[in-house]
């Protein structure tokens, strides 16, 4: 399966080519090239998945992990070396399919969305860079390669968020995203170094006898790695960059900040799952609590936001919380006894990627039509945009967890895993699922029903998006309709053995009821034009409403900590030290160099006889020095 190398090489070439040619290339040519390449990557990924799973299980009943290509890149010692390679196992193959599919759809969609933008070529070359980095991340054969691509993903995300670099908010958002995730990655790097130091390898599966001595440090290393994952996956309190990242073009939000990059943290935990389960289960449970809190927090905030992309951003944070919780509640590697969450998490990752990309792309169509992100500019759009309306509704139903859409199946497994872990966790997550249904339908009604902004719409009549944008919507909607019926457990499970998904109807019934209640509440509050209930609630609980609208002032707290404490008390003195002591030393060095170079200029007189004297004098002088010491 050496051809899998092409999956990384093709987007890389496309990045280099489009990037180097730049504006010499016609926008259409750049876009078409990038799209064709991504299409080819998608086909290759499907073929990889087909042949990987088609090869069947080996004698142990698991799909054989394959490394079609691997090169030792930087050796540090006998066992410690950084490799670059390609690792195929069920989750990496699954990720290949997800990433290449969404990326392909986004490439097509961007044709319509980004039409006429300056920097169209730059946009496509960055998309290629991102695709390459993300694919490289998931197929990494070792933790260090993963880290390299992890950073590359961060860079491409930074570049794409700041795509409209003349806009102040976009620049600020890109910086914020980069700095916050980079800060978290520091933890990741330290974790990797501790891991490498004590186990003597960067491999995902080190020898068990090596681990014996490193046992004490593994929880620390894994915990630090999770900090990196929490940064990328926007877990509380490192989530602050994701809502701002919505300043980037909407297709980018769909690809990077909904479907692929933000689940890198989930993927990291899944990748390290055997180590977590074997040596640090308590750390794993901590991640569950972090995930649960994040899911709750983000869901509450999502209920009151007025910018539709912000609602989706918080919904993404909340859903990633679900995935992390699901991994965190695992107590063993056996899917029949406490390991169900692993499969559920990966399943939800898969379905969520599809319907969340669909939601974002739908939001892109709406923004394209009304030229605003605010709900107040919308309302009643169902008449103008039928395709967007229907596909958006499908995605909303899926995320709310309504049978038979894909979200129902994956969320049901997650809830079942949570109830296995503890009833409290189960009920909390069920409640959040209800909130999810509520805020998604609040969003839906506010966009497509409810009070229409007639003045705005009269001035500029909303229209359905062009075909390049609606085709990806329809495709993703079909996937969302069908994906729940995939026997996911047959492909991915915590111990690699086949796991037959069976729906726990007691859990399912509860979650369906809660989801229906959430939808009903949203319908009651937001369907009609007057929205009396919603407005009166907002005024009655104005304190709570305001706090939630301002995301419980987490950004302001950060602002306070960074500006008042870190900048004022730590950075300023260090800056002074740097400016006066460090720079002063360098200036002194420069001054001495200049003086000395002026003083000794006579040595280079140009008279060859004097050179001879220096020559002999130097030799004799050196001899004397040597004999004296």
């Amino acid at each position, binding site marked *: 399966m050496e051809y899998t190398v092409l999956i990384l090489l093709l987007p890389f070439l496309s990045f280099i080519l489009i990037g180097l040619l730049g504006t010499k290339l016609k926008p259409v040519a750049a876009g078409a090239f990038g799209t064709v390449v991504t299409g080819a990557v998608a086909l290759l990924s499907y073929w990889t998945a087909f042949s990987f799973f088609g090869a069947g299980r080996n004698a142990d009943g698991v799909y054989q992990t394959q490394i079609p290509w691997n090169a030792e890149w930087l050796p540090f010692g006998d066992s410690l070396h950084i490799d670059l390679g390609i690792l195929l196992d069920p989750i990496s193959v699954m990720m290949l399919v997800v990433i290449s599919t969404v990326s392909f759809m986004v490439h097509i969609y961007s044709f319509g969305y980004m039409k006429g933008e300056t920097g169209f070529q730059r946009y496509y070359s960055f998309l290629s860079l991102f695709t390459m980095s993300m694919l490289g991340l998931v197929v990494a054969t070792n933790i260090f390669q993963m880290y390299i691509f992890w950073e590359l993903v961060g860079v491409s995300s930074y570049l794409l968020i700041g795509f409209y670099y003349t806009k102040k908010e976009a620049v600020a958002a890109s910086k914020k995203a980069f700095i916050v995730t980079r800060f978290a990655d520091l933890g990741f790097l330290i974790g990797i170094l501790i891991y490498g130091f004590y186990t003597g390898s960067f491999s995902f599966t080190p020898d068990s006898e090596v681990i014996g001595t490193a046992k004490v440090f593994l929880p620390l290393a894994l915990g630090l790695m999770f900090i990196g994952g929490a940064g990328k996956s926007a877990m509380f309190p490192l989530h602050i960059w994701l809502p701002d990242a919505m300043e980037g073009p909407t297709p980018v939000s769909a690809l990077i900040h909904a479907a692929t990059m933000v689940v890198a943290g989930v993927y990291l935990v899944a990748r390290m799952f055997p180590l977590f389960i074997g040596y640090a289960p308590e750390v794993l449970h901590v991640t569950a609590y972090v995930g649960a809190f994040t899911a709750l927090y983000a869901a509450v905030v999502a209920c009151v936001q007025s910018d539709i992309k912000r609602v989706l951003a918080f919904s993404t944070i909340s859903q990633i919380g679900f995935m992390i919780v699901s991994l965190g509640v695992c107590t063993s590697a056996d899917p029949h006894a406490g390991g169900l969450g692993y499969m559920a998490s990966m399943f939800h990752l898969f379905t969520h990627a599809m319907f969340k990309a669909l939601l974002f792309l739908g939001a892109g169509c709406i923004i394209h039509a009304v030229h605003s992100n605010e709900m107040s500019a919308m309302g009643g759009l169902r008449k103008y945009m039928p395709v967007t309306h229907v596909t958006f509704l499908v995605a909303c139903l899926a995320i709310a967890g309504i049978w038979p859409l894909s979200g129902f199946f994956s969320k049901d497994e997650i809830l079942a895993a949570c109830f296995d872990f503890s009833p409290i966790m189960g009920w909390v997550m069920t409640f959040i699922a209800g909130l999810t249904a509520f805020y998604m339908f609040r969003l839906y009604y506010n966009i497509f029903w409810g009070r229409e902004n007639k003045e705005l719409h009269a001035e500029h009549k909303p229209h359905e998006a062009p075909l390049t944008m609606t085709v990806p919507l329809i495709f993703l909607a079909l996937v969302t309709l069908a994906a729940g019926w995939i026997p996911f457990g047959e492909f991915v499970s915590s111990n690699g053995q086949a796991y037959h998904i069976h729906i726990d109807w007691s859990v399912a019934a509860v979650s369906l009821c809660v989801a229906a209640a959430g939808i009903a509440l949203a319908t009651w509050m937001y369907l009609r034009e007057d929205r009396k209930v919603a407005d009166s609630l907002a005024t009655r609980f104005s304190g709570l409403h305001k706090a939630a609208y301002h995301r419980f002032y987490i950004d302001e707290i950060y602002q306070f900590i960074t500006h008042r404490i870190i900048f004022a008390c730590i950075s300023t003195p260090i800056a002074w030290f740097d400016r006066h002591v460090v720079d002063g030393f360098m200036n002194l060095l420069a001054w001495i160099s200049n003086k000395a170079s002026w003083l000794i200029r006579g040595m280079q007189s140009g008279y060859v006889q004097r050179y001879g004297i220096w020559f002999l004098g130097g*030799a004799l002088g050196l001899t004397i020095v040597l004999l004296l010491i």
Partner: protein
Amino acid sequence: MDYSAIFTYMYTEIALIGVTVAALLYDLIAGRRGRKYFHGIMCGVLLLFIGATVFPYHKETAEIFGGMYIYSPISGVVKSLLAIGTLLVFLQADKWLGQKDTEIKRGEFYVLTLSTLIGMDFMISAGHFMMFFIGLELASVPMACLVAFDKYKHNSAEAGAKFILSALFASGLMLYGISFLYGTTGTLYFDDMTAGIDGSALQILSLVFFFTGLGFKLSLVPFHLWTADTYEGAPTAVTSYLSVVSKAAAAFALMVILIKVFAPVVEYWQALLYIVIILSITIGNLFALRQKNLKRFMAFSSISQAGYIMLGVISGTPYGMTTLIFYVLVYMAANLAAFGVINTVEQNSGGKVGMDDYNGLYKTNPKLAVIMTLALFSLAGIPPFAGFFSKFFIFAAAFEQGFHVLVFIALINTVISLYYYLLIVKAMFINRNDAPVATFRSDGSTRISLLLCLAGIIILGLASCIFDGINLYTFGI
């Protein structure tokens, strides 16, 4: 005596002599028309030669001529490097050789250069001081002719005179030192001499005198004074040859002899190198700061680079040898790229080599400016270019052997060097110029050589297999 051993182990030199004689004959019979193809043929033949000898054929060391000549795989590696450097210089020299007054001497350039290469090859394979000295002289005397190649130009003639006088002086001192060694030990064979080295004052004197000979070639302080004048006056192609190939051979030979012959007085030669390294790096840097002529500037830069190369020698370990060869390889790519740009700008702008002439080069010749920038970055040791890795490795080799202060001083000097390398970058990219070097298209073979150097600057550091590959051969030196 079994003559087959000569062909088995001395294949590089024999092939090279063959190439040289063929070039000589071709020059005689070719005439005006044949000379048109001379460049292409020469580069092709040299490429074939490199292809045939680039990897050492034998994995063991062997002595022939009763120990006068020693074959070792690592010397084979070094010889390949020298040949590659020579090829790059040939590629860059075409345009200059094509001028009216040098066209007729084209053959001489090739033959003289190849003669010095033969000399260096013998020098680094020597097992006997006589052999070593003959090789050294074979590398020096034709070099003087090369330096004075543009003999009707005042600068070139002056440079040639200064070079040959300094070379004579250095050789004289060295021979004097060798004669002392012979007097105290009774032998000139490297292997036998070690037993007789006891560290007496006379032997320390002869160690220093011997060192001056190679110190001259490497232009280490205080034996460096000829460098600036010679580099400035010599034709640029010759300067680049002098700064890279000649230095590489000398550095390797020095390390081998110090380790082999002077092993009993290791603390003496380490102290000697310690002083010379600090002097070379610092003084080279201090002079480079004030230069206005780019060739003179490169001369001082190469003096300080020679100091860094010596860090590999001072470690005295096989790992140090690896770092030394790797450093030289990377230095070759970067320095030849810089000289290639200087050369092609000089040839295409009517002899502009001043630093002010480079103001605004980016506007008119962006590709050359970028190559020059990357070459200077590599020389300064900025990651991710190869120069960073080579500096890192060579510092590590010296650090491992306990030369902490020395490495620290070298590190401070890299900061200073960064300043003057960036001055040129600033000139090219930022400084304004009302009359910049006009836009031109370099000749094909220069472009090829620049591309090769560029590839070297970028790839050598990242492809760890190259360093590891060299490391395979440096056993048991």
